[in-house]
C-alpha cells in the first residue's frame, strides 16, 4: 500500500531500486565466491570504490531533497557529510584502544602526541556504537536546525543563502584544521582497525559495508519519496515555485524550510558515516567548499527534483572522475566545469531528462525536414 504510493508514478525510481538490488546481490558474490583469477571476480578495491559511490549517491539524494524540491540551494552540504564522517571516525578511533602507535589505552595517538592528559569531554560516549550512530545524525541535524532557523527566520534566501552555506563549510574546515579542536588537526582521524569487532581490512567487512551502504541508499531514497509524495512535499515544491503565496495561504514557510534542511542534513551525515570506514580516513579537506560545489554538479547533471536522477548523477560523475583523474589528472576540473556548463545550457533537467530532450530535438528535426 505504502510502496504503491511511493513508486507508482516513479518509473525511474523503480528501475533505479531494481538495478541497485541486482548490484547489491551480484557484487558480493563476485567478490567473495568467484576465485580471484576468474574474469567475473570483482576486487576488494572495486567493492570499496563502489561502496564510496553509493555514499555519494545518498548525499546527492539528500541535496536533491532541499534543492530540487524546496528550491534551497545549499552550497555547504559537504559539511553535514563530513560531520557525520567525523562522528563515525571518533567511534573508530576509540575502537583502536591500546593498539595505537603509542599504545595508550584510551587516548588516540594524536592526543598523546600533543601531550594531552585526558580525553576531551566531547569524546566521551563515542566508544559506544549506538551513541556514535546517534551522533552521526544528531550533530549534522542540530547544526542544520540552528543554522537554518537563523537564516530562514531572517528570510535569507536564494543566492545569499547559498553563499552563507559556503561560508559555513569553509569556517568548519578552518576550525577542524586546528589541533586545539581535538579532532586530529590537518591529519584528521585515520589508522582505523575495526568496526563492531570486524577488521576493516577484511574483504568480508568491505562487502558488508558495501551492502549496508546500498541498503542505506535505498532506504534514504524511500524516505525522500515518502516526504515528496506527502502533502508536506507539495508544500515544499509550492515554496520553491511561489514562496509568498505559500505564506499568504497560511503556512509557516520557515518551519517547513528548517524541517527539510534538517532532515536532509541528517541523511548527509549518515552518508558520511558510511563513507569513512570505506575510505579509511576523515580529515578537514572533506569540508572544503569545492566538495559541496561538486555535489551540486552531480545533482544538476543527474537532474534535480527526481531523487533517482541525483543518485545517478553522483554515480556517473564520480565514475568519470575516477577514470579521468587516473588518465588525465589535470583535465578533471576542466571536465567538471564543462559538464556543468553543458548541462545547464542544454539539459536543464539533467541527464534523467535526456531521453525527452533527444525526442524533442528529433521532433524538431523531423518538422524541418
Amino acid at each position, binding site marked *: 500500500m505504502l510502496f504503491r504510493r511511493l513508486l507508482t508514478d516513479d518509473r525511474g525510481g523503480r528501475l533505479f531500486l531494481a538495478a541497485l538490488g541486482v548490484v547489491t546481490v551480484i557484487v558480493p558474490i563476485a567478490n567473495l565466491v568467484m576465485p580471484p583469477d576468474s574474469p567475473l571476480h570483482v576486487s576488494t578495491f572495486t567493492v570499496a570504490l563502489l561502496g564510496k559511490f553509493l555514499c555519494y549517491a545518498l548525499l546527492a539524494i539528500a541535496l536533491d531533497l532541499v534543492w530540487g524540491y524546496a528550491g534551497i540551494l545549499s552550497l555547504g552540504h559537504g559539511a553535514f557529510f563530513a560531520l557525520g564522517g567525523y562522528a563515525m571516525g571518533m567511534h573508530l578511533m576509540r575502537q583502536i584502544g591500546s593498539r595505537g602507535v603509542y599504545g595508550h589505552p584510551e587516548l588516540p595517538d594524536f592526543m598523546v602526541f600533543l601531550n594531552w592528559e585526558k580525553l576531551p569531554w566531547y569524546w566521551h560516549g563515542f566508544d559506544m556504537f549506538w551513541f556514535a550512530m546517534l551522533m552521526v545524525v544528531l550533530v549534522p541535524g542540530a547544526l542544520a536546525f540552528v543554522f537554518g532557523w537563523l537564516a530562514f527566520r531572517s528570510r535569507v534566501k536564494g543566492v545569499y543563502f547559498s553563499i552563507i552555506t559556503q561560508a559555513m563549510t569553509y569556517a568548519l574546515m578552518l576550525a577542524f584544521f586546528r589541533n586545539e579542536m581535538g579532532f586530529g588537526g590537518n591529519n584528521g582521524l585515520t589508522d582505523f582497525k575495526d568496526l563492531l569487532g570486524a577488521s576493516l581490512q577484511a574483504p568480508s567487512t568491505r562487502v558488508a559495508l558495501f551492502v549496508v551502504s546500498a541498503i542505506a541508499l535505498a532506504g534514504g531514497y524511500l524516505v525522500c519519496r515518502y*516526504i515528496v509524495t*506527502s*502533502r*508536506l512535499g*507539495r*508544500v515544499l*515544491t*509550492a515554496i*520553491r*515555485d*511561489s514562496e*509568498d*503565496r*505559500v*505564506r*499568504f*495561504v*497560511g*503556512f*509557516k*514557510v520557515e*518551519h*517547513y524550510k528548517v*524541517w527539510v534542511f534538517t532532515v536532509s542534513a541528517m541523511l548527509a551525515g549518515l552518508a558520511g558515516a558510511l563513507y569513512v570506514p570505506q575510505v579509511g580516513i576523515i580529515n578537514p579537506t572533506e569540508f572544503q567548499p569545492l566538495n559541496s560545489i561538486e555535489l551540486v554538479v552531480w545533482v544538476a547533471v543527474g537532474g534535480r527534483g527526481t531523487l533517482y536522477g541525483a543518485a545517478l548523477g553522483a554515480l556517473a560523475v564520480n565514475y568519470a572522475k575516477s577514470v579521468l583523474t587516473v588518465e588525465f589528472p589535470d583535465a578533471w576540473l576542466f571536465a567538471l566545469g564543462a559538464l556543468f556548463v553543458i548541462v545547464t545550457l542544454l539539459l536543464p533537467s539533467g541527464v534523467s531528462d535526456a531521453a525527452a530532450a533527444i525526442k524533442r530535438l528529433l521532433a524538431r528535426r523531423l518538422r524541418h525536414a
Partner: protein
Amino acid sequence: MRETTVTAEPAIGTETASTPIFDPVLGTPDIGQGWILYLDGITVSFDGFKALDGLSLYVDAGELRCVIGPNGAGKTTMMDVITGKTRPDSGVAYFGRRIDLLKLDEPEIASLGIGRKFQKPTVFSGHTVLENLELAGAPRKGVWHALRARMSGEERDRIDEALAIVGLAQHAHRPAGQLSHGQKQWLEIAMLLVQRPQLLLIDEPVAGMTRQETEMTAELLTSLAGKHSVVVVEHDMDFVRSIARKVTVLHEGRVLAEGRMEDIQNDPRVVEVYLGE
C-alpha cells in the same frame, strides 16, 4: 461562474454573523461595530518617502469596496500592511474590533480569514489545480501534520464548491501552469475561498484579462460580496464602475475622497488627480 448560491460559506452581515472561523488562539473577529476592517492613521515610509500618510479606512462586514488611485498612491502598501507583510511606522489596524493585525505575521493573518490575491497571478504552477486548492484549504498547516495528512471528504467538498464558483471544475487535474491568464486569476480566488476568508483583498483582478473574462470576474466578485467582505484595488475604471457600490480614492498615501461612484466621478479633486487623465 454562474452559480451564485453558496450554502456552506458563513454569511457575514446577516444574523448568522457569529459563525465564521474560530481560531483557538486568536479568537473570532468581533464585528460588533459593523466594521470588519479598521485602519486608522496608518503611516509607512520608505527612506523618507511616505508611501502611506495617515491613511484611515473602514470597511463594513459584507461590503464590496473598490479602492482606486493613481500609481504610487499607496494601494499595494495598504494591502501589505493589512496582511502583515509591511509594518507601519504608526497607526492602528484592527480586524473586527479586537484583533490587532499589527501584532501578527502573514500566516497568522491568513489563517484568521484574510485572503489576499496578488496583482500578478501567483499560483503553484507545478501543481494541479486540485493540489493548489488542497494546499490552500488544508485545515491544519503544521509541518508534522502535513507529512501524514490526507484530504478529508469535507476538504474535498469545499474544494469542489470553490471550483464550481470560479468555473474551473473541468480543469481540476490540469497543472496550474497550463491555465490561461484569466483562469489563473480565478484559481487564485478559489484558493482564497477554500480558506473560508471573511475578508478578501483583491489586487487588480482584471489586469490583462479579455473583455469576456473581465465580465465574468465582475459577476464573480459581486456574487462574493455579502458572504465575504471584499476590497478590490483596480485601475480599470470601467470595471470599477460595473461593480462598485462604494469607492475610496487614494492619493499620495491618503484618502482623497470616499463615496458612491457617481459622486466620486464628479468630485473636482478626484478629477484633477485621477479621472481627468
